[in-house]
């Protein structure tokens, strides 16, 4: 039985899919997924019962949608009902404010509500609540209710009053887990859309900070805000972002990446062409550099465009520490990046092809340690890197308590035992360990992913062709990097093309008093951050304390 059903289903599926392939279908709109057909807007009726019926029909089997029926004007017996989603609304707002202001109050002397003026009067009364709106069709009511509004429908009127009563559960602002810092603000973005806007607005108090809001995802109806500072961000970039986001036509947006992969410049890229951050301060600093932020509802990581390669090495904290310290740390990270990429490959190349490069004392040490080992150095390092990646992945996914067990097993059992048992040489354990540490000191998580892929490729290249393999591999990576662009900005800027001004904030960070121009990479129309020559100065001799 089951088999037959299955087969039938498959056949139907096939029939459907072949139907879709027919050219006649192409003339129709592209939305073919069930439940996604746009319905013609259906106006509300004057008939109270018809409206109620229709809405109950729409919200059939939605237990979180609440219908309240009541009588507004007892003399004339005007009926009304309010509909809202209990899961999305603040009950107190609805109970204390909304209902109180609607229901006839014996003490209050106001205009009498009649069927004719009900909508106007009630709208006036409700204005004490944040947002009030009037909607005339069923779909509008449906959408608004599902966005956390309460809809009020009165007998005899074909319009619905929509009052904002948004509320419900949300996560409190907490420290950003993925980008912790020692100095600098400790608040992080949360999933709630409005909270995130608040976090940005609190930092940039200018009316030139703009949020362009659209909605994406036919089922999820996720709000997306393109956020930029007018006059600082390049209008062309803003427009490009808007256009690319508008092109998206999908049924769901659950996380930033749903948008990210649709608006990237390249179909496939090993490197992150769009940055994200969990830190509002970092987001604001990007806005102030003339970049564009894409806030996405239910995602605590807004996207930042355009981005460059060097952004992978920059952390928000760099701007809060002493510039010398920050520069040193950035150089350290740069070395770490290179080590994470190259160290295993270089080891393989040197040990299997160019032993003459090693200083004589090291040769004897290493040769002694490697005597009698079954595997070649390249195989050893590949296997060990692989094991390490497994450990890391396991550690990320496991609950914290079991994670400790993993590190014990990984560090002690595998590392120590493998060497003692004479399976691998200590040198490859050391190399893999240093590489691991180096790869963790690259601040950008996405970048660490691409590094990982490239590292393995380079190890393979080195084990086949030695040093030349590494150079070839690096050249391919370099060509790839040079060809990348992020929203029109060359990815390797400010190095290729060389932009001398931007070098001030690349591998080093010069002090704030010298950073008086915004980076040219973002093609900002508003170049100057501040006036010139504001640096600290020594008091004139003779002046001040003696």
């Amino acid at each position: 039985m089951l088999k037959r059903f299955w087969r039938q289903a498959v056949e139907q599926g096939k029939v459907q899919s072949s139907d879709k392939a027919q050219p006649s279908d192409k003339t129709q709109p592209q939305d073919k997924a069930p439940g996604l057909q746009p319905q013609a807007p259906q106006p509300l009726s004057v008939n109270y019962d018809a409206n109620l019926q229709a809405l109950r029909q729409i919200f059939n089997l939605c237990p979180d949608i609440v219908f309240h029926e009541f009588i507004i004007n007892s003399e004339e017996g005007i009926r009304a009902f309010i509909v809202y989603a209990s899961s999305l609304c603040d009950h107190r707002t609805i109970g204390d404010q909304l209902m109180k202001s609607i229901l006839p109050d014996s003490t209050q002397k106001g205009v009498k509500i009649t069927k004719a003026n009900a909508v106007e009067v009630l709208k006036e009364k409700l204005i004490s609540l944040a947002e009030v709106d009037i909607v005339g069709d069923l779909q509008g009511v449906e959408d608004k209710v599902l966005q956390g509004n309460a809809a009020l429908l009165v007998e005899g009127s074909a319009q619905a009053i929509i009052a904002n009563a948004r509320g419900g559960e949300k996560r409190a602002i907490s420290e950003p887990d993925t980008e912790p810092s020692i100095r600098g603000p400790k608040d992080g973005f949360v999933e709630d859309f409005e909270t995130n806007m608040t976090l940005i607005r609190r930092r940039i108090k200018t009316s030139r900070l703009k949020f362009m809001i659209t909605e994406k995802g036919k089922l999820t109806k996720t709000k997306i805000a393109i956020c930029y500072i007018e006059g600082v961000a390049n209008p062309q970039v803003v427009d490009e972002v808007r256009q690319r986001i508008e092109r998206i036509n999908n049924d769901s947006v659950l996380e930033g990446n749903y948008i990210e992969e649709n608006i990237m410049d390249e179909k496939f890229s090993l490197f992150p062409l769009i940055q994200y951050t969990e830190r509002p301060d970092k987001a604001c600093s990007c806005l102030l550099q003339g970049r564009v932020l894409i806030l996405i509802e239910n995602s605590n990581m807004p996207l930042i465009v355009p981005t460059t390669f060097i952004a992978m090495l920059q952390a928000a904290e760099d701007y809060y520490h002493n510039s010398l310290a920050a520069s040193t740390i950035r150089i350290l990270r740069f070395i770490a990046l290179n080590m994470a990429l190259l160290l295993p490959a270089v080891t393989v190349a040197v040990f299997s092809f160019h032993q003459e490069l090693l200083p004589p004392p090291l040769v004897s040490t290493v040769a002694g340690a490697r005597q009698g080992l079954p595997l070649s150095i390249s195989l050893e390092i590949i296997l060990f890197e692989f094991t390490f990646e497994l450990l890391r992945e396991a550690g990320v996914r496991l609950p914290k308590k079991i994670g400790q067990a993993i590190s014990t097993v990984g560090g002690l059992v595998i590392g120590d035992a493998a060497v003692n048992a004479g399976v691998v040489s200590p040198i490859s354990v050391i190399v893999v360990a240093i590489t691991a540490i180096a790869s963790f000191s690259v601040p950008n998580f996405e970048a660490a992913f691409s590094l990982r892929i490239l590292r393995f490729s380079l190890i393979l290249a080195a084990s086949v062709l030695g040093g030349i393999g590494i150079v070839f591999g690096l050249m391919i990576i370099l060509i790839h990097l040079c060809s990348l662009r992020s929203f029109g900005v060359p990815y390797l800027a400010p190095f290729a093309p060389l932009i001398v001004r931007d070098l001030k904030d690349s591998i080093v960070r010069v002090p704030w008093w010298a950073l008086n121009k915004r980076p040219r990479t973002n093609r900002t129309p508003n170049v100057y951050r501040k006036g010139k020559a504001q640096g600290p100065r020594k008091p004139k001799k003779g002046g001040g304390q003696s």
Partner: protein
Amino acid sequence: MIFLVTIMSTAVLFIPSITVERAKQCAWLAVLLSMSAGLICLGLANALGKRFPQQTLVQYCELLLGKYIGKAVAVGFFLYLFVVSNIVTREFSDYINIVLMPETPIMVLNGLLAVIAVYAAAKGLEVIARVAQFILPLFLGSILIIIGLGLLEAQPGKLLPLLENGPGPVISGALEPATLIGQIIILTMIFPMINLPQRAVKEGIIAIVWIGVLLTSLTAVTISVFGPILPGDQLFPFVTLAKHIKFTTIQRLEFLVIFIWVSGIVVKVSIFFYLESVAIKQIFGLQNNIIIFGFLIVSHTLLSTLPFNNPQETNFVLSNFWPPFALVFEFFVPAGLLAIAIIRGKKVVLRK
């Protein structure tokens, strides 16, 4: 900048050997002399580029010389590019074969280099230029380090006596580097594709001067370290120099040099591949990138194994037969075209 990397990458390796063989202790003078030849070529390229700002050399060949002769000259020019990239590929794999990987077949190295260069060429001129720009500081840095450290061991006395045998050997020694620096003529193919042609000319001049200065000092340092006989007998005196240098604990500098030099070679071959693909498109009207690049990969993998049997032969050919052939296309063809353009002149210019 792209020119600098393009020309330096091969020049660095072979120049000292060839010029020293001819001009002995005055080799550095020969290099300096060849610089002027490069500037003449650049002047030609500039004049042609100004007359035909929208076209490549291959295109205005036909315009100036008529359909058949023009096509023949264009094909000749393409062959020139083709031979250069083949020789470069061969030089590269010979070199790697001798210094690093004696057991790897040349064809493997050729093929890999060709594939990478095609990858870059397919991405276009801008990407190649960026790559060149990125490696330029490393490239210059490594050469300057070698020169600087070489100076520590230099004995300037070895550079004397000046012009012992008259200017003859110097001039014949200058021919080879002149053909290399003359590769600046590829500018005639690039002109229509750049936004600011005048800036490219300016950079070309700067590049040639830099190349001249660097090569001259490099040759001079090599001679003053090894004397006038040894570098002529060696295949790659520059690498020997890098090997020779020991600065406190820093030794084996040649590896640094080799790796950076390889990246320069990749850039050079990619720019030639790119130009070849442009030339093929314009001469034969082919549009399919896959066919063109496939042809380039296969031909370079196979053909560059053919011309010479060993690096000695390469050096021999480079110093004896190559200069006349190269000079035809680097100097005489552009000069002839320019002359014809001036004679038939204005009509062609006006049509632009």
